[in-house]
Structure formats: structure tokens, C-alpha cells
């Protein structure tokens, strides 16, 4: 431990702690635009300067030392910070009124905090082309302050290597290699760049107008579904605490917006488990293409198709939950209600930007004869629509979801958290193999925010080795171990592997709120504390649920008896499963 003084407060922290982090322990918030807990300090923005024994240093990358005396704020430091910020703003457009990030922008907030009240330094604005090529994530390099978070996240955290810096100085630009459009790079549309961007330089592709247009057309029957992770994050946009589960209010808001039916992707998650557990039991028994990888995360599927095409047979063929709901909405629901499927539109509210791409990633996404899911909007876009509709969200009364695609189990809910899909699948797989229910429904070894979590589960004397990969950046290690074992003819390290591209799972997806509320931990957007709180919101719902098992969802049973038939076969296979293909890293 190291003892030091920060603004006359005695502080004791572990050796190696940065001055910036040490100061936060005594409620001192040193301003910064580039440092984020998920990235290494880069000393990029120059806002976090402090005085160490009279010398001015950047606190993000200066570790504490015994006996240090630090001043974090005085007239001189304030003046320097303001000048640094004015330099940053001198090549940032004054577009706040029209910017999608307005009100949730760290740069805007910083300008307010530092009291910037003038354009003192002559503006040099370099026009750089907007990149909307993915139709999932939008790059607007002219709004970039070159903090480096997105590049670090894309290259080092996610190991995707789509984003990079091109050129230098004023010409510096966040873009793909050789200025390739993002859609032509290895980008998997996970949106972690957008989740970490402090400004409006990287945002979701806005599809809200498409939804309003559908709702306006009275010939259409527009239905909606919400993903598990949406319910524990949307509230942040309306002043609720992190992780507060607002399922009932969200249903009510969606009805007021004008959706004909409100379904739940958690129902789809239960349906996915029926198919996926059936598939796993079959494949495990026949030792067919093991280990089996989960396939609910479209960013992960995209990554696999690009980086590990030789392992594609290992992916589960199950579609993701919202795609399953889309497919049954335009077949089963249409048939049950007598509505012409051609007139049904399915909108999915997702914590995810990659889901926007998923809806058209393969021809099997049209298994109903139409595009199964028409539009995907993110949690942030739903918040925008609720505001546009003039709904007083906080005053809404809870409502329930609509039959026949609204009922769900606790297992469906935890799909939004790392380890949740594996847990849900094991509950049902255990039942399918043994005919008995698991005594204990949780697996502690695969909970939490560690990058790679592994366990061995005993099912009727058979050992099933599982792994949960939390964040696609950890896939390489697991995949290397698997492929080496295969090449050497050794026993496989795992039989069943869950992968979620975003660290923490969907609760920390690229489409989740980035709210500026002063009772919340900084920096805004996402960090491990927020990941824990949102996860808790979903885990609590599971623990309190009357039914925590997908195979006991009555609506799911009815769907199979009335319509699908047997899991994994015939109509169920045709509607609920997909195929994969190799994709080039660059087009």
C-alpha cells in the first residue's frame, strides 16, 4: 500500500494505482475525456493534469508514489484545462442541437463543466465523410476528438481489428484499413466502439423513422418484442437506478406508441433453449461436431464466419431468440389470428447494434416467406421514441405482454447476461437427459465478469465440460485450445461453449443507454459497476420467477403441440434454424 496526500486528504491505495483512480477514492473527480476503465491510459486528451510537487503531470498515466503531495484543482490548472478543451473544441463542429448524442455527450458535459463560453480559438473544421455502410453503426469522423477509446476497444478488447487511425494531425480519421468503409472490414457490428465513444462520432444507425412509418400505415399490423437486457437498462434514460427492472412499464409504453401487440423476446429465449438443448443432447450423444457453440449473439456469429470459418460446423444452428419470435409471429401468430402474414411487421427492441445486421444476414432469416424481423431498434432508440411520443414514462402503470408470444421463464430472462444462455440451456438439457429437474439451478463457476469461465457438470455420471466466453476478445484463447486438441487427437477441453461478444453480455451491449445522470458512477456509458447492477436486475427476476425452466413455459408447449410439432425437426427446424457461410475479412 502507498500513502499520499491528494488536496490535503490522506489517501492509501495499492501500489500501481494511477493518481486519477486514487483521487476518485476521496470523491475527487479529475476531468478526463480519454481515460475509461475498460481501456489502458493513453495520455491522449490532456484534461486530467494535476500538480505533483509543483510539476504538472497527467494523472491517468502517473502511478502514485509514497509521500506524494498532489493538487488536483487550482486556478492555474483550471485555466490550462479550459484551454486544452478549447483546443479540442476548435476542430469539433457546433452541431449539438442536431446531434444524436446531445445530452449524453461527455464532450458537451465537459464544456459545461469547464465553463466554456466562447469560440476563442479559430475553428479548423476538416470535412470527413460519414460512414453508414453497415446500417448498424455510424461513423462520423468529423465529430471525433481522437481519444482513442474505440480503436483500443475494437483492437485490444474485442480483437476485431476493424477500426484504426488513419493519417495524423488534423487529417487523423477513425476508419477501416486503407480507409475501407466499415461494412467492408472485419467489423462485427457489436457497437462496443459506440458504447465507449465520448462524443457523437460513433453512434447507432437510427431506424426510428422506419418504425414510425410502419405505425402510421393502418393497413399493417405492427408488433413489437423486447430483449431481456432492455428491461433493466431503459429506465436509466428516465432517471431510474441502474438495473431496475421495468418490464411492465415498457410494455405499457410500447402500447401507447401504437404497437398492435407487445411480445417478449424472453419467450423466444425459452424457445431457443428448447431447440438448443435438444440439439446439444443429440450432438453430445453422437459426439457430432463438438464442442457446440451458442449462436444467439450475431456479432459472435459474424466473428466466427470471418475469423474461424473452419469451425463453423461447431456453431449451434439455432437462430437467436428475436429471430425465432419473428419467424413464429409471421406463421403461427398469423395463422392463429387469421391476419395475412404479408401485413405483419415485426419490430425488435434490442440492446445491440449487430441485431440490425442479423435480420438480413442469411436467406434463412426469411423462413416465414417474408423477412422475419423487419426492423431492429436499440434501447437508446426506444427511449427516443418514448420521448417523441410524449409519454410520461415514470407515471405509467405496469401492463402485461400479449399472448401467444409473451409468456417467459426465468431462464429466458437471464439470456441477457454472460453465462445466462449456458445456465438456461443446462437446466433444460439436464431434464432432457435425466428426466429429472436440476436440484440447484445456478452454476456459480460461470457467473461474474471473468473473461473465460469454465466448469464441469455431472449429468447422470457423465461429465460435461462447459466454458463461457465473456467478450469476443477472449475467443482466441479458447478456440486455440480447442483446435490444438483436435489437431493432436486429444480429448476436447470443452463440449459446450457460450460466447457473448460484449463483455458482461447483452446488458452491456452496443445499443444500451449512455446516460448522463449525476448520481451514477463515472464515466458514463458503461463500466463494470454498471454491468454488475444490470446483471443483478436480470438475475433477480430469474430467482423470483415462479417458473425458472424453459421447458415448463406453457405457451411454448402449446406452440409445439398446436403448430411446430417436434423440436429440432420438420417445421421447427425449418423456421427456427439457420446456416452459416465463410465471410472475407475485407471486401
Amino acid at each position, binding site marked *: 500500500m502507498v500513502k499520499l496526500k491528494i488536496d490535503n486528504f490522506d489517501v492509501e491505495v495499492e501500489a500501481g494505482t494511477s493518481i486519477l483512480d486514487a483521487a476518485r477514492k476521496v470523491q475527487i473527480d479529475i476531468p478526463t475525456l480519454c481515460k475509461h476503465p475498460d481501456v489502458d491510459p493513453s495520455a491522449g486528451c490532456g484534461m486530467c493534469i494535476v500538480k505533483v510537487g509543483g510539476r504538472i503531470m497527467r494523472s491517468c498515466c502517473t502511478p502514485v508514489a509514497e509521500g506524494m503531495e498532489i493538487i488536483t484543482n487550482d486556478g492555474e490548472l483550471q485555466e490550462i484545462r479550459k484551454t486544452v478543451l478549447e483546443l479540442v473544441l476548435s476542430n469539433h463542429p457546433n452541431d449539438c442541437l442536431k446531434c444524436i448524442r446531445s445530452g449524453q455527450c461527455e464532450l458537451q458535459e465537459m464544456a459545461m463543466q469547464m465553463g466554456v463560453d466562447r469560440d476563442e480559438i479559430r475553428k479548423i473544421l476538416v470535412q470527413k465523410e460519414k460512414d453508414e455502410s453497415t446500417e448498424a453503426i455510424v461513423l462520423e469522423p468529423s465529430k471525433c476528438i481522437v481519444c482513442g477509446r474505440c480503436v483500443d476497444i475494437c*483492437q485490444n478488447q474485442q480483437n476485431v*481489428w*476493424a*477500426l*484504426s*487511425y*488513419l*493519417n*495524423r494531425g488534423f487529417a487523423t480519421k477513425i476508419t*477501416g*484499413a*486503407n480507409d475501407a468503409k466499415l461494412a467492408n*472490414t472485419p467489423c462485427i457490428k457489436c457497437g462496443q466502439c459506440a458504447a465507449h465513444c465520448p462524443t457523437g462520432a460513433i453512434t447507432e444507425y437510427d431506424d426510428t423513422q422506419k418504425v414510425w412509418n410502419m405505425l402510421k400505415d393502418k393497413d399493417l399490423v405492427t408488433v413489437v418484442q423486447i430483449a431481456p437486457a432492455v428491461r433493466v437498462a431503459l429506465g436509466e434514460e428516465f432517471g431510474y437506478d441502474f438495473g431496475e427492472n421495468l418490464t411492465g412499464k415498457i410494455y405499457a409504453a410500447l402500447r401507447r406508441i401504437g404497437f398492435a401487440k407487445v411480445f417478449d423476446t424472453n419467450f423466444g429465449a425459452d424457445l431457443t433453449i428448447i431447440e438448443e438443448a435438444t440439439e446439444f443432447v443429440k450432438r453430445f450423444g453422437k459426439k457430432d461436431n463438438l464442442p457446440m457453440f451458442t449462436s444467439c449473439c450475431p456479432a459472435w456469429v459474424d466473428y466466427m464466419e470471418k475469423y474461424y470459418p473452419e469451425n463453423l460446423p461447431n456453431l449451434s444452428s439455432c437462430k437467436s431468440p428475436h429471430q425465432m419470435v419473428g419467424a413464429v409471429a409471421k406463421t403461427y401468430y398469423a395463422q392463429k389470428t387469421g391476419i395475412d402474414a404479408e401485413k405483419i411487421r415485426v419490430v425488435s427492441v434490442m440492446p445491440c447494434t449487430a441485431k440490425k445486421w442479423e435480420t438480413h444476414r442469411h436467406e434463412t432469416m426469411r423462413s416465414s416467406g417474408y423477412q422475419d424481423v423487419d426492423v431492429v431498434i436499440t434501447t437508446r432508440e426506444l427511449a427516443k421514441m418514448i420521448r417523441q411520443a410524449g409519454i410520461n414514462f415514470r407515471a405509467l402503470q405496469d401492463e402485461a405482454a400479449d399472448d401467444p408470444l409473451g409468456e417467459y421463464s426465468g431462464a429466458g430472462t437471464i439470456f441477457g447476461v454472460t453465462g445466462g444462455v449456458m445456465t438456461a440451456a443446462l437446466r433444460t438439457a439436464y431434464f432432457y437427459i435425466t428426466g429429472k429437474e436440476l436440484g440447484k439451478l445456478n452454476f456459480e463457476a460461470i457467473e461474474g465478469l471473468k473473461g473465460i469461465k469454465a466448469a464441469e457438470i455431472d449429468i447422470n455420471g457423465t461429465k460435461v465440460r462447459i466454458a463461457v466466453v465473456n467478450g469476443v476478445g477472449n475467443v482466441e484463447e479458447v478456440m486455440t485450445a480447442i483446435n490444438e486438441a483436435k489437431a493432436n487427437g486429444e480429448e476436447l477441453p470443452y463440449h459446450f461453449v457460450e460466447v457473448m461478444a460484449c463483455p458482461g453480455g447483452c446488458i452491456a451491449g452496443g445499443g444500451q443507454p449512455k446516460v448522463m445522470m449525476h448520481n451514477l458512477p463515472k464515466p458514463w456509458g458503461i463500466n463494470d459497476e454498471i454491468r454488475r447492477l444490470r446483471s443483478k436486475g436480470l438475475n433477480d427476476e430469474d430467482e423470483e420467477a415462479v417458473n425458472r425452466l424453459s421447458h415448463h413455459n406453457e405457451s411454448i408447449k402449446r406452440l409445439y403441440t398446436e403448430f411446430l410439432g417436434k423440436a429440432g425437426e420438420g417445421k421447427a427446424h425449418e423456421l427456427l434454424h439457420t446456416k452459416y457461410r465463410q465471410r472475407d*475479412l*475485407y471486401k
Partner: protein
Amino acid sequence: MSEVSQAAQIANKWRKKRGSLIMALHEIQDVKGYVDWQDAVDVSQGMGVPLARIYEVLTFYNFFKLEAPGKAVISVCTGTACYLKGNDKVLEKFKSELGVNEGESTPDKMFHLQSVRCVGCCGLAPVCVVNGKTYGRMTPEAVPGILAEWRKTFEEE
């Protein structure tokens, strides 16, 4: 099976040495005069370095050319002495005569325009160098003559 490219051979040579990406790129530019997309792809595969990283290096350093330069490489000195004596106006004249920016080549690949910092003969400032031939006491008015001279040289070849 196509022949192994020069870039691939160079990448293979540097493959096992850590931190040698820039050395490999230098060598390719020495041999070919530029590093294009296919070269970068060969280096990426040969050395196991993502293309995103390769282009960060290629575009950070002014030295690297991403495509074949024009036959006559025009270097306009913008070092202190040349700049003060008006070489910025000479540079502008080259740009407007050729219709290219700094670091670009004409579509017919005859000329490549670049600015450099000091060519070591400040006494002749302002100075331009074309394929090793030095032009001292430059003026914007002299630009069309120099271009005509090199066009003629290439036509005669």
C-alpha cells in the same frame, strides 16, 4: 499456384523478428517504390499483423507511398529558407498546373508532387528537385517550363 510476391518474400524474411513491421514495409518501398493494398495483404498474412495496424503505420509516416508514383517526382522544399522565400506559392502553382495535391500523382502517372523539408542547398532558395535535378531561385512562373521540359524528356524516351 501463382508466384510468391516480392512483398510476401520480404514479409517472410522479417516474420520472426518482433516489432519489425516497419522494416518490412521500408524494404518493400525500397524495392517497388510504394506499398499497395496487395503488398499490405501479403505482409498481413506473412507476418500475422492485422491490416488495420499496417495502414496505421503506412499513413502515419509521410515516407510511405500507397501507390506507384508518377515518373517524375517533384520535391518542393518547404524548409524555413525556401518557405520564407516564397516556395509555398511555387507549390500552389504546381498543384494548379498538375491538378493534384501534395502526395498525389497525375492520372497519367507522369508526375508525382511532394513537399520536403530542406534539401541542403538553402543558398539557392527557393529550391525544387525533380528526379535528382535541382532547380534554384524558383518562381511560380518557372513551373510550366519545368513541366514541359520533363514531358519532352519522357516523350523522347
